């Protein structure tokens, strides 16, 4: 039979190679309903057989902040400037929590979904995207908590909250931090799929990252000599900007912001293309 007959208009075609640049985001878009369902699934599951359910979304940062205030503010005595320690640590914890959860959660995309991936095709990127979306939903609840605290402190006379125009950058900051986490998670999802033991590296890496990001200390208590370590971290300006916009205290330059954005775009592209290139090859070893 003539195998190259006039059947030119095929709807789809499967070949042996996955091209680096064949990032079909339009296809991901057609699966947006699935993405929404997965977000919903995450939310529903947080209710199942729990005592407090979604309340943990609020309790987690609150308890963390409580510990930080106790340890770093009361015991160690790190100065948070004119900002009340509770607000200082709450902003840091919420923003860091976003990065940490997105990175850690998406870094196991292949290993946690191996069963599903080996049984049905859908754009694999839906999974990490759904995870990021679910985390952003959680974040909205946490931001409400932060707003409540801000309002509470603004009524106190001994504290002045310098809310300013930079607060409008807030959605941008959150997206940049989430995308940085996603970029790292995508890269690590490929690595952990191939070498499972490297999953142990993720928590350690997260801890190191946290200490080189101004989460539990303000930028200006760091000696100038070692500030470059924080400066090369693209997260640093985001944290400083976040605090500056909401609390009026933080140091950053516009060059740092540009650097941070460029880094985010670059990391995200690397993550997306690496994920996209490896997703099919990884199916053979999952």
């Amino acid at each position, binding site marked *: *039979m003539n*195998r190259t007959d006039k*059947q030119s*208009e*095929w*709807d*789809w*075609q*499967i*070949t*042996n*190679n*996955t091209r680096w640049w064949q990032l079909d985001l339009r296809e991901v878009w057609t*699966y947006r*309903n*699935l993405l929404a*369902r*997965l977000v*919903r*699934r995450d939310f*529903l*599951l947080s209710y*199942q*057989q729990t005592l407090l359910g979604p309340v943990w979304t609020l309790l987690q940062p609150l308890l963390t902040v409580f510990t930080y205030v106790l340890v770093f503010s009361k015991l160690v005595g790190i100065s948070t400037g004119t900002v009340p320690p509770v607000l200082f640590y709450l902003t840091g914890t919420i923003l860091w929590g976003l990065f940490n959860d997105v990175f850690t959660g998406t870094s196991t995309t292949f290993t946690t979904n191996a069963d*599903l*991936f*080996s*049984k*049905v*095709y*859908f754009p694999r990127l839906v999974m990490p995207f759904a995870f990021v979306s679910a985390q952003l939903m959680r974040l909205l609840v946490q931001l409400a908590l932060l707003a409540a605290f801000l309002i509470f402190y603004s009524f106190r006379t001994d504290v002045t909250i310098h809310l300013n125009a930079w607060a409008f950058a807030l959605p941008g900051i959150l997206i940049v931090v989430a995308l940085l986490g996603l970029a790292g998670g995508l890269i690590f999802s490929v690595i952990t799929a*191939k*070498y*499972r033991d490297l999953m142990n590296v993720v928590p350690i890496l997260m801890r190191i990252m946290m200490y080189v990001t101004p989460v539990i200390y303000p930028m200006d208590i760091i000696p100038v000599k070692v500030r470059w370590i924080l400066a090369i971290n693209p997260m640093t300006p985001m944290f400083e900007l976040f605090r500056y916009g909401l609390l009026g205290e933080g140091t950053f330059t516009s060059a740092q912001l540009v650097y941070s954005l460029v880094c985010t775009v670059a990391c995200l592209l690397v993550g997306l293309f690496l994920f996209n290139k490896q997703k*099919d*090859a990884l*199916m*053979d*070893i999952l």
Partner: protein
Amino acid sequence: MTKLAIQVDNISKLYQLGTIGTGSFKRDLHRWWSTSVRNQDDPFGLNSTVENESQASHIWALRKVNLDVVEGDVWGIVGGNGSGKSTLLKVISRIIRPTHGTVRGRGRLSSMLEVGTGFHQDLSGRENIYLSGYVLGMKRHEIRRRFDEIVEFSGIGQFVDTPVKRYSSGMYVRLAFAVAAHLDSDILIVDEVLAVGDAEFQKKCLAKMQEFTRTEGRTILFVSHNMQAVSQLCKHILWLKKGQVVASGPIQSILNQYSNQSQTNQLSQVWQTPEEAPGNHWIRLKSVELVPQKETENALVDVRTPLTLKFNFWVCQDELRLLMGFQLMNQTGECVFDIMTPFTDCKRGLVEATCEIPGNFLNDGSYSISLIAYRNSWEDYFDYQNCLSFDVEDFRGDGMNFTGKWWGSVRPKFPLTLMHKPENQPLSLSL
């Protein structure tokens, strides 16, 4: 001109064997160094020097498979374990990439490679219908439109808002199949999903599958071990063996050939001299064979076929009081029956034993036979386990539309009759 729905063009799939993980990083580095930096051949690739198959580090799960599927055709994909059936379905479903070759297709494709794809134990039936539907590629309006139908087909009724982990396994399977059965895709890929569920539900599934093809003209690729299902459903068969196509085409030409081949029978064993034969100082086996009394040469051993077991042995003592027997085991290792002779006085020389197993007695399945011999009133014994093995195929005859597995260890045809009994009083009750 008939339009093709799927064209499988020269597909090959290579798998790496052995442990992936420990040592693979070193190998990855080595490979990267050779292929990318020094521009050499892959040291672990296809052209590596390892020729011996048992030492090879790779295996071809599929090799140069071609298949043209015309729109509306139903293809059965058959073959033994490890023949590459599932790999082929996964390649066509886009789950894994082929090593070589191209698959082209037209229309939306959905695959059911397991029961309950995308299901989550903790979520309700309702949530899972949506989740699974979306995972399988359904659109929102399709699920909405079909939702009631799905619930009705699965028969879960009021449990639709109960978490599926509280379902019985039967309910779970029914719901999972129901979602997949209501996919509105042009091409459907099914992998032995019918092997689950009770007989009644299997029948329902099969009917649904037939409805798919007959009334809606969809293309189906169907993998199954259930020959009855394949022959009822499919018009074409692709037969794979060790990743290669043995035959493909219309069902009539292939089904018999396949069934003959796939029977992994060892129907006889013969030893030329007592020295090499199994046995001991008082008995040696010469031959053991099972002779099916088939009507034609190519006919299969099915439930109707009478079988004759014959075995010859050398008695190596001048005088021997001997009891011979054999056991017939089914595939789970259970003994179906155990038959033996009474103790008999034998002289040195050759002895033959025969036993006839009538037709219409054994159920379909795989069986093996073990021999045993006792001497001098249970003083000593010799046994030879699993010396023969054979398959009995199913046969239902005309007018028997039931397709589930026939129950029972044996399937005798004892006469069972119905007859009218004249009664003095006419039946006044009308039901």
